[in-house]
C-alpha cells in the first residue's frame, strides 16, 4: 500500500526492467510454474470439461446471487456464525475493528486474504492501535518490507533470496548474508509459531463459500490459516460476495482445478472446511461488496467475478512476467487485476487494460474460462469513451483513425514513415519516443506492399 500510486504501469515497469538479470529470473520462474500447470492439467483427460463445468457453475451463481446470498446467510446463522455485511472497504474495516474492540483484542494474526489487502485493513487497524501480522510466508516478507504482494499466490516472487535474507537480518536478527531458503523458512516458522500461540484474534480469507451448508473453505499450503484459526478466541472470515458456490459437491470441480491451475499441485496441502465455531470460540463472517455489485451490473465485465484467484493468468502473461506485479499498482495484479481494477476506479487504473498484448493466453489457461483478453480490449474502449485515456494515447488513436479513414492518407503516411526511418531515423528514434526504450524498429522496407504489387502486376 505504501507504493506510489501516481506512476502508471509503463513507468513502474520501466523501473523493473532496468535490472535485466532480475527480469530474466522472474520471467523464467513464472514460466516454470505455467509449465507445471500444463503438466498437471494434461494428466486429467476431462480437464476441459471441468473448466466448462466450473465456468457454468460460476455463471449460474452470478445470475442467482441474490438467492444464494440469502441461503448462505441463513445457514451460517444456523451454524452459529455471526454474519456481517459491508458495502465498502471502510465499512469492512470498521466491522473488523468493532469485533476485536468488543473483545479487547489488540493483536491479530491474518492468513492470506487479498480482500483485506484491497481494503487496506492492516493500515486501518494499526492506526487504531491494533497490530496485525500476515502469516503467509510471502505476505509476511512483503509486510516487513512495507510492500504490497506482487502476485496473489506468490506474494514475493519478485524478490531474490539475498534481499529476503537482508530483511530477515534486519527484522528477525538472522546472521548477515544468510539466504538459504530452508534456513530462512525455519526462522520464520519459529517466529510465527509464537505469533499463532499468542494471538486471540485470527482473520482468514475465503476461497469458496457453500450456500447449501453455510460452510466456507480456505486453501493454503503452509497451514497458517488453521494455525491461526484453531488457536483463536475470535475467528473472522472476510469474503467478497462472488465467492459463493451453490452445493458442496461443486467443491469437487473447483478443488480439482484450483491448485493445478495455480502451481501444478494436485490439491493444496490444506483445504479446510469451516462450519461451526469451536466450543468457547466466536466466529464471524463478513460479506463484502466493495464494487462487486457494480461489476455485476456491467454486462461486458461481470464474468470477471467468476475468478477463483489461482494466478494462472499472471504466470502465463508475457507482460506480467516481464514487468513484475508491483507495476500494476493494484492489489490484484496481472491480467485479472487489469479487468477488476478499472471497476474500482477507472481514472486511477486507466493504464492497466493497456498492460497487455491481447495475446489471449490468459483466457486459455483460466480455470473458469473468463474471457480476460476480450475484457481488456473492451475496457480500453470504455476508458477512451469516458475520457480517461492519456492525451498521447487518445491523440495517437485519433491520428490513426484519421490515417486509416482513407486509402490516400494511408499511402501518404506510409511513404512518409519509410522516408523518415531511412533518411533521418533520429527524428523518430530518440529518447522522446517511448517505443525505442529497450526496443528497435525493424528496418523499413523500400516500398509498400501496394507499390510492390502494382509493379509486379505491370511486369506480369
Amino acid at each position, binding site marked *: 500500500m505504501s507504493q506510489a500510486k501516481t506512476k502508471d504501469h509503463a513507468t513502474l515497469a520501466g523501473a523493473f526492467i532496468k535490472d535485466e538479470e532480475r527480469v530474466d529470473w522472474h520471467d523464467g520462474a513464472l514460466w516454470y510454474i505455467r509449465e507445471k500447470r500444463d503438466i498437471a492439467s494434461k494428466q486429467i483427460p476431462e480437464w476441459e470439461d471441468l473448466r466448462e463445468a466450473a465456468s457454468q457453475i460460476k455463471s449460474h451463481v452470478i445470475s442467482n446471487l441474490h438467492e444464494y446470498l440469502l441461503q448462505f446467510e441463513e445457514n451460517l446463522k444456523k451454524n452459529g456464525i455471526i454474519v456481517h455485511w459491508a*458495502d465498502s472497504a471502510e465499512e469492512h474495516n470498521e466491522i473488523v475493528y468493532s469485533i476485536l474492540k468488543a473483545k479487547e483484542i489488540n493483536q491479530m494474526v491474518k492468513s492470506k486474504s487479498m480482500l483485506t489487502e484491497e481494503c487496506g485493513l492492516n493500515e486501518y487497524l494499526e492506526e487504531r492501535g491494533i497490530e496485525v501480522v500476515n502469516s503467509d510466508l510471502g505476505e509476511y516478507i512483503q509486510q516487513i518490507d512495507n510492500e504490497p504482494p506482487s502476485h496473489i499466490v506468490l506474494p514475493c516472487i519478485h524478490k531474490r533470496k539475498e534481499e529476503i535474507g537482508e530483511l530477515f537480518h534486519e527484522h528477525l536478527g538472522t546472521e548477515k548474508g544468510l539466504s538459504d531458503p530452508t534456513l530462512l523458512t525455519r526462522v520464520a516458522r519459529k517466529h510465527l509459531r509464537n505469533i499463532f500461540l499468542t494471538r486471540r484474534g485470527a482473520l482468514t480469507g475465503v476461497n469458496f463459500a457453500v450456500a447449501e451448508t453455510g460452510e466456507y473453505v480456505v486453501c493454503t499450503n503452509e497451514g497458517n490459516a488453521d494455525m491461526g484459526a484453531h488457536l483463536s478466541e475470535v475467528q473472522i472470515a472476510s469474503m467478497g460476495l462472488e465467492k459463493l458456490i451453490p452445493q458442496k459437491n461443486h467443491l469437487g470441480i473447483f478443488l480439482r482445478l484450483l491448485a493445478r491451475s495455480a502451481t501444478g499441485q494436485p490439491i493444496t496441502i490444506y483445504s479446510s472446511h469451516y462450519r461451526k465455531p469451536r466450543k468457547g470460540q466466536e466466529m464471524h463472517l463478513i460479506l463484502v461488496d466493495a464494487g462487486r455489485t457494480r461489476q455485476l451490473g456491467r454486462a461486458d465485465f461481470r464474468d470477471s467475478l467468476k475468478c477463483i484467484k489461482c494466478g494462472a493468468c499472471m504466470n502465463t502473461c508475457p507482460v506480467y512476467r516481464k514487468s513484475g506485479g508491483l507495476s500494476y499498482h493494484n492489489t490484484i495484479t496481472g491480467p485479472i487485476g487489469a479487468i477488476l481494477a478499472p471497476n474500482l476506479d477507472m481514472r486511477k487504473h486507466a493504464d492497466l487494460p493497456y498492460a497487455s498484448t491481447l495475446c489471449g493466453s490468459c483466457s486459455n489457461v483460466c480455470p473458469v474460462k473468463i474471457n480476460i483478453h476480450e475484457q481488456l480490449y473492451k475496457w480500453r474502449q470504455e476508458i477512451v469513451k469516458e475520457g480517461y485515456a492519456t492525451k498521447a494515447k487518445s491523440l495517437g488513436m485519433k491520428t490513426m483513425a484519421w490515417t486509416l479513414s482513407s486509402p490516400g492518407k494511408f499511402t501518404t503516411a506510409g511513404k512518409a514513415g519509410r522516408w523518415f526511418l531511412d533518411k533521418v531515423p533520429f527524428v523518430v528514434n530518440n529518447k522522446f519516443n517511448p517505443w525505442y526504450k529497450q526496443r528497435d524498429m525493424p528496418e523499413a522496407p523500400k516500398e509498400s506492399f501496394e507499390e510492390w504489387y502494382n509493379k509486379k502486376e505491370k511486369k506480369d
Partner: protein
Amino acid sequence: MKNGIIRKKRKINSMTTREKILGAVLKNQPATTALPDITMFRGDNNDLVKKYMDVFKTIGGTAFLVEDIEAMKTLINESFDTAKRTVTTLPGLSESFELISATADPHTYDDVELAIIKAHFSVAENGAVWLTEEVMGQRIIPYICQHLAVVINADDIIPTLHEAYEKVGAGDYGFGGFIGGPSKTADIEQALVLGAHGPLTMTVFIMNNQHALF
C-alpha cells in the same frame, strides 16, 4: 453501556447495508443460467492403493502399506522419536501414547512431536486424506504437531474428489479438512521447503483390509 449503544448503532447500519447490497445484487444480476450436470465426473477404481501411494510420495509424504497395528507400531518406533510427546486418538495405541483430550486448551498441544490419528478416507488422485474434528481429537492437532501420522483402511481409498464429496455428503462436522502432505512453501525464490507452519513430515499407514482398524 457505551459499548452497547455503539453495537446497537452498528446493527442498524448493517441492516441497511444488507438491504442495500441485496437490492443492488437483485437489480444487477443477469437472467438466470442453468447449473451443469456434473454426475459424469468420476474416477477410475483400479489400482487405488498403488495410485495413492505414488501420488502421496510425489507431494512429499511417506506411505506404508501395513498388515496390522503391530507392524504400524514397529514402524512408528523406527521412524519417530517417541520419547518426545506423542498423542493419538486411536484406542489401540492408548497403552503406548497419550490420548488426545477433546476439551483441553488447544495451546497445550504446542509441544507435540507426533500425532497419530485416523482418517475417514483418502483420495488417490491427489494424495489427500479427509479428517473431521471428531477423528482429529482437536481441530488444532494435525496442524500444530511437528510430525503427522494418519491411518487409513486400504478399502477407504477412493479415486477423486467427486467420490469424496459423495462420501462426505452434507456432513454434520463443525470443522473438516483435506490434508495432502507435509506443510510446504515455495515463497522464497520458488525453492520448495517442507515444513512451513504445519507438520514437517506426513506419514500415511494404509491398513490391510483384513485388519481394518475401524
